[in-house]
Structures are given as structure tokens and as C-alpha cells.
């Protein structure tokens, strides 16, 4: 790594802090950027700064937004009786892409993770309770990930919300659409069996 001019070394160093980027990838990105036109690189640099300066978490649902409350929370057409709880803003976007869901969201900004020492106090759980206490919500959909952390989070929230007397549901887990039964592992298959329903 010796003999890089200081600005190059600095950029490599900075890029390495991004998730999933190691020293080799950071070098490749740096030399890629060096070859691009200056306007293109400036556009990238400015959008990086703009994200930090203009984007905040919505004070209601904790989605990322450039206005608070966010467009989803401000939209009177969204059904306030159904609240979908997700781990991250990306999960909210994935739900929105389905076009199926017309309710509102709550982003926890994480999931419970014992091995990382992440407990309920590190998530937007208290804020969720405050929202639910306002009494508009009739159903909470727990749409956390189907892994150990997401399941633990759903389990915790289900227990926490029980005394509120709301309908609490968990999204179905099982086989991916287009998947093949033969290649499914036993855990996925048993979850799919558990989540079976009447047909016809």
C-alpha cells in the first residue's frame, strides 16, 4: 500500500469503511473514480453530503425522509388501522414495491441480537408503544426477517403488545415463489407446512 499520493490513500481508507468493502475493492473503486469525468465524481460527492444534510428519520415511523413527517405518514389515504413493523428502511421499500399494502409503517432500525448485545432499548420499540397507545391501530403486522434475530424481535413484540388487545399477525414464512420443494432445507419446509392454509 506504500507510495500512493495522499489523496488516493485517503479515499481508499474512507471507502474501506463501507460495509462489504475490503482493501482490494476500495483500491479498484478509487482508480475507477480517477478515470471518470470530474462532473460525475462531483455529482457523487454532492449526493453523499446531501444524504447527510437533508435526510432525517421520520419522527413518527423512523423511515428515512427529507420531510418530517414523511410522505407515507402524511398521506391521508393510507390506512392508519393497520401498522406494518419492519427492521430497516429497505424492508419498508420492499413492502411498498409489492403495491399490496395500504397501511402505515413503523421502522425499528434494527433487530434483537443477543450476540451483538442489541436489546429492545436499542430499537424504536418505546416509540412503537407510544404510537399504539394513541389507539388508531387495530392490527400490527410483524414483518421482521425470518432469521433468528427477526424471529426473536417478533416474539418479543408479540409478548409486549399482548396486553394492548390488538390483532397481532406475523408474515408467513416458507418456500420462495419459483422454488423447488426437493431443494428446500428441512427448516424452511417445516415453516411452510406450519403456515399452510385451506385452498379452493
Amino acid at each position, binding site marked *: 500500500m506504500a507510495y500512493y499520493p495522499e489523496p488516493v490513500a485517503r479515499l481508499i481508507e474512507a471507502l474501506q469503511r463501507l*460495509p*462489504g468493502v475490503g482493501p482490494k475493492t476500495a483500491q479498484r473503486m478509487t482508480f475507477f473514480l480517477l478515470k471518470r469525468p470530474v462532473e460525475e465524481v462531483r455529482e457523487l460527492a454532492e449526493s453523499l453530503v446531501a444524504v447527510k444534510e437533508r435526510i432525517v428519520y421520520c419522527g413518527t415511523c423512523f423511515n428515512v425522509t427529507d420531510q418530517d413527517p414523511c410522505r407515507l405518514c402524511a398521506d391521508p389515504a393510507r390506512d392508519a388501522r393497520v401498522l406494518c413493523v419492519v427492521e430497516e428502511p429497505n424492508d419498508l421499500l420492499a413492502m411498498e414495491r409489492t403495491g399490496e399494502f395500504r397501511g402505515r409503517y413503523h421502522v425499528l432500525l434494527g433487530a*434483537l*441480537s*443477543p*450476540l*451483538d*448485545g*442489541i*436489546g*429492545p*432499548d436499542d430499537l424504536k*420499540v*418505546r416509540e412503537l*408503544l407510544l404510537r399504539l397507545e394513541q389507539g388508531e391501530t387495530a392490527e400490527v403486522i410483524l414483518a421482521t426477517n*425470518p*432469521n*433468528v434475530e427477526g*424471529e*426473536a424481535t417478533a*416474539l*418479543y413484540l408479540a*409478548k*409486549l403488545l*399482548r*396486553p394492548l388487545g390488538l390483532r397481532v399477525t406475523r408474515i408467513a414464512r416458507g418456500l*420462495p415463489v*419459483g*422454488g423447488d420443494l426437493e*431443494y*428446500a*432445507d*428441512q*427448516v*424452511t419446509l*417445516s*415453516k411452510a407446512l406450519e403456515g399452510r392454509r385451506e385452498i379452493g
Partner: protein
Amino acid sequence: MGLGRSAAVVIGSFPIGESDLVVSFYSREHGKIRGVAKAARRARSRFGGALELFTLGELVFFDTGRSDLLRIDHFDIVRPFGGLREDLEALGQAAWIVECVTRLTADHDRHVALYALLVRSLRALETADRPVHVAVCFGVRCLEVLGHRPRLDVCGGCGRAYPFARPALGAGGVLCERCAREAGDATPISPGGVAALERLRATSWEEALASPLGRLEGELAALLEAHMSGLIGQPTRTGRFVREVRRLSPAPGGRP
């Protein structure tokens, strides 16, 4: 170098790159090892749910010899320990056990007795009425297996024979009142606690699991947490998780 295989338990993972996963295992044949599972984060990955925390399986890996990261070829589930994911207390105690194994062992350090203890403990946790009891049994035996067995027959400071009044537990074993004061970091332990530690390590695993601890359960759990934290060099992460999650349990439906 080359192809390797071993029974192994998933003890952790983190995402890397677009869709890969770095997975840590505690394996029977190679101790703690880490490898990359290509495309494991895709919804239709060939690994499916196999790489979830605590899963016991048959691991087939390739050692390129060029990095400490192996390439994970296959991981076929032998036992998913799904029961651990349906109860927060069981999950917390299983995570505590896994954290002890992870943080008290070095990479590639084969330790069949510890591997067997890990699997036995996870299996017991799956059906345990009192998950913390299993964690206590694990903790006592884990110290034995790793050679950190605390001496319980004499004071570790002055060599005075136990029993004596107001014993404490230090890094090396039981301490008398004066030596505990000098050591500074010893935790008081009840005479019943000392006897229970002795009993738990002398009896068979099944007997240890079956013998009720009553009031001593909480005391021993806290002592073992302090002891493990001392060996690790900082408090366990899972200890905090367990405390936070427990606030829900004492009064059913209670709120934080």
C-alpha cells in the same frame, strides 16, 4: 489445504459483499473456523435456512490456504434446534453459551469435549423448563473442559482449607474473607453455592440437569457470568440482552 468435513454448530455470521455471508462454526474436528458462503443471503440460496445461528450440521468446506476464510461448500442440517428460537429466555441462554465458546477459544483449536458440551447444552435448552439451569450446568463444565477449573478445597490466596466463613469466588477459586479483600475482584459466594459448584462438576450431565438448584440458581448464574466476563476481559454481550428481555417476563404482560 483441500477439502475438509466435520460436524459443526453455527455460532455466528455477518454479511459480506452483495449477497455472501461469513459464517463462524464451532466444529468437532477443527474447533472454531470461519468461512464464506457464496450467495447465502439470496432468497433462493442453496443454503436455505441451514446457516441460521445454533444449527448443527455436517459441514463440507474447502481450504484454499490463501486466507483464514474457508469456502463453505455444503452445510447439511442435522438438527436445527428450532426450539431455541421460540422462547426468548432459551434463546438468550443459548446465545450466552455460544458467546462463551466463541470468546474463550482460539481459531482452529480442536476441542472435542467442548464441542460435545456445546451440542449437549443446546439440546438440553430446547426442552428445558428453566433455561438458566442449563446455562449454569454448561458454565461449570465449560470451565473444567477449558482448564479454568476453580479450586474449591483451599483458599487460593493463603492456602487455608475450606470451609471457612464468608467465602468469595476469585479467578482461581474460593478465597477467604481476608484474601478476597486483598484480591479486590472476588464475588461473595454462599456456602451452599460452593457445595453446588462442587456437586455440579462431580455428577453426570444428566444428574446435573435433573438436580434442582432452587435459590442457588440465580446466584450461580451471576457468579458464572462474572467469572466468564473476567476470563473474556469484559462483560458478555448476551448478559445484557437477557436482562433487557427478562423485564417482560416476571409479571406476564408487564411493560418496560
